[in-house]
């Protein structure tokens, strides 16, 4: 799926953006999208992801750099000539028009005839299972229905590229999850290219082909969801995606990508070196809570184990979330599957924990 620079459908090249001439909101963005790709821009608010989307849509101009769509530079192309469909966070359905008129609008401004318009509107509404709602007004519909209409409106004029700016942000959890599948399904059946902006990591992981994690105006990591979760490049990504235990320490041994880290209390642990350079470097070791093992038979032979004291066990149904004190840190979390033969842990209990060195990643200090 990863596109090279030449045949990319959308590409950002050294794009920078500043609003006040003093600070950069987007710092040197380089990004290529292949045709048909579903790319999510994920990041906390103020990370520059929405600004990137707005530059692509044409509502903001890049201060520096070039944005290309289908091989052609579009920096100077006004938004209405870009042919990009867009779904907004608050739906942005025109309140003074019916659903049908909303969908008709992009076709009318393109000078399409009445019969052709009606056919396209019907097809678009059927696509989101809203065929019976053409004469309703936006205010008469629920949030989820409005969202479907917004989606249909962004797709009705057959755009090659669809941008979505936190489209599910205003929906409740259940509906949001349902809509995630529908959007994903539409993307697959229509073969459109989607750029999706969200701050919800779950959404990003379930829907995307690739996720670009934004922070501080830069892409911190651009990777498929699984890689992002399992092999974060740096401490920000590790912390932002999923739950994560962080243990600060110093590199004791470095052998290729295998590292041994000395924690603050002097204990040694195994880790995979990701972005540490040399022995003596400070590092933050990141381990997912579900990859921590405390049964000796599950810890790989020869791996280091360390002391842990169980502080709290929270029953969450599918898992038992266990908080431990490890190397002087109270917030170390281990997720144990709730199975019949699970070893019960009780607060105050002292155990040895360990993990596969591949699951512990020695990252930069933040």
């Amino acid at each position: 799926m990863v596109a090279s620079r030449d045949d990319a459908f959308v590409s950002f090249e050294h794009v920078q953006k500043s609003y006040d001439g003093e600070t950069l909101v987007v710092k040197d963005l380089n990004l290529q999208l292949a045709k048909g790709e579903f790319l999510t821009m994920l990041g906390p608010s103020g990370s520059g992801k929405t600004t990137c989307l707005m530059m692509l849509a044409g509502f903001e101009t890049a201060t520096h750099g070039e944005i290309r769509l289908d091989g052609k530079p579009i920096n100077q192309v006004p938004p209405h000539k870009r042919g990009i469909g867009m779904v907004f966070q608050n739906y942005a359905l025109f309140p003074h028009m019916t659903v049908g008129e909303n969908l008709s609008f992009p076709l009318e401004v393109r000078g399409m005839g009445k019969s052709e318009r009606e056919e396209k509107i019907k097809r678009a509404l059927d696509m989101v299972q809203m065929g019976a709602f053409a004469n309703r007004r936006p205010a008469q519909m629920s949030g989820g229905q409005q969202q479907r209409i917004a989606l249909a409106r962004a797709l009705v004029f057959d755009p090659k590229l669809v941008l979505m700016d936190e489209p599910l942000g205003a929906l409740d959890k259940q509906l949001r999850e349902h809509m995630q599948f529908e959007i994903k399904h539409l993307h697959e059946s229509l073969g459109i290219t989607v750029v999706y902006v969200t701050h919800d990591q779950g959404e990003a992981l379930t829907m995307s082909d690739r996720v670009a994690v934004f922070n501080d105006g830069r892409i911190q990591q651009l990777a498929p969801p699984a890689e992002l979760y399992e092999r974060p490049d740096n401490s920000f990504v590790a912390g932002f995606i999923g739950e994560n235990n962080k243990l600060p320490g110093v590199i004791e041994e470095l052998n290729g990508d295998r590292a041994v880290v000395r924690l603050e209390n002097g204990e040694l642990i195994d880790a995979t070196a990701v972005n540490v350079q040399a022995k003596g470097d400070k590092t933050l070791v990141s381990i997912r809570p579900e990859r921590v093992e405390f049964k000796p038979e599950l810890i790989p032979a020869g791996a280091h184990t360390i002391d842990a004291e169980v502080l709290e066990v929270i029953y969450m149904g599918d898992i038992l979330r266990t908080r431990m004190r490890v190397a002087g840190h109270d917030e170390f979390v281990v997720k144990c599957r709730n199975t019949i033969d699970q070893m019960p842990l009780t607060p105050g209990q002292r155990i040895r924990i360990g993990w596969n060195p591949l699951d512990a990643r020695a990252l930069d200090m933040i």
Partner: protein
Amino acid sequence: MSDVASQLTTADGRPLKAALASAQARAKRRAFFLVLPLLLFILISFAVPIGQMLQRSVYNDQFSKSVPALSQWFAENPKGTAPDEAAFAALASDLVLMKETRAAGDAGTRINYVVSGTRSMFTKAARGADKLEPPFMEAMLELDEDWDNPLVWNAMRSAASPWTFDFYTIAFDLERDADGKLTKVDETQRIYFRLFIKTFLIAGVITAICLVLAFPIAHLLATLPMAKANLLMILVLLPFWTSLLVRTTSWIVLLQGQGVVNDILVALGIIGDDGRLQMIYNQTGTIIAMVHILLPFMVLPLYSVMRVIPVSYTRAARSLGATSWTTFRRIYLPQTIPGIGAGVLLVFILAVGYYITPALVGGADGQLFSNMVQFHMTKANWSMAAALATMLLVGVLVLYWLYDRLIGIDKLKLG
């Protein structure tokens, strides 16, 4: 549905609606007492005076209270009867009465409203009323040959009853001929209705200029960051905080023949020194000064509506392929209609009834209808002033009704 609701009862068997009403009665009573002072204030200072004004426009006893004998004769003889000796005798006896009560001037003034130049007939006749001898017809005609003018007699018949539409007849530039038919007055004397129409036209022009000027300002205010918008808002509201008189006077300073604007135009060579523009003490002056005064009333409702239109609507329209003009026309403008409606209605109604500015800077041709109301008030012709004011009120109500039919009053958004 309503059947089911009316049958619902509370646990102890009382009808639900009654239970609800009694449960809320106390709160409703308290709320009513809170608004009572305002209600009384409005009643005393607004509703009652308007009622009085409406009454005065159709009720005038200036003449009728002084002519008991003549009223009797009018009652006994149907309309169209030529005045006979008995009529003149009744008139003479009433004139004697008028002399005693010094009411001849008042009574004559009432007839004079309808037939001009007749006031002196009454004062003159009343002065010598007690010396009049029968036959009264000849005696009166000797005093003034106009005493058998059918117009005067028609006017007296009409004025003998305090209830009258004479003032509305005058206000619509109509008069009754000798046969009692309504005809238009002479071209040169048609002032009221013509001014009425002109007032609505000028108010329309002022409203249009205000809308054109206010729309971009309101849009700017609505899209700027809050801090800057507040600063600009102060500039918009500044006229509100300045005395009306000061503002109007400063327009005189700016616009007069030797004023700042003319001086600048002359200095720039756009007009010659002998071609200084007359921009004050005429219609132009009225329009300029009133636009300035009424502009905030247009900006504020527009601003309050535009502020809550999310930028995503216009962005959505652009992304769907609409040019900026189409976006404005089909997406942005329709959503500002409640604000436009409120602003237009507000400015227009204020402009139609405006008095002080046209009085100060209007000169001869910049006067509006209210100035005519004021003119009649200074002349103590309350009924005429009331009739004109009622016309203004009805005109505005008709516009309000039209607005409700066309746009809907529930769509009005003032802020």
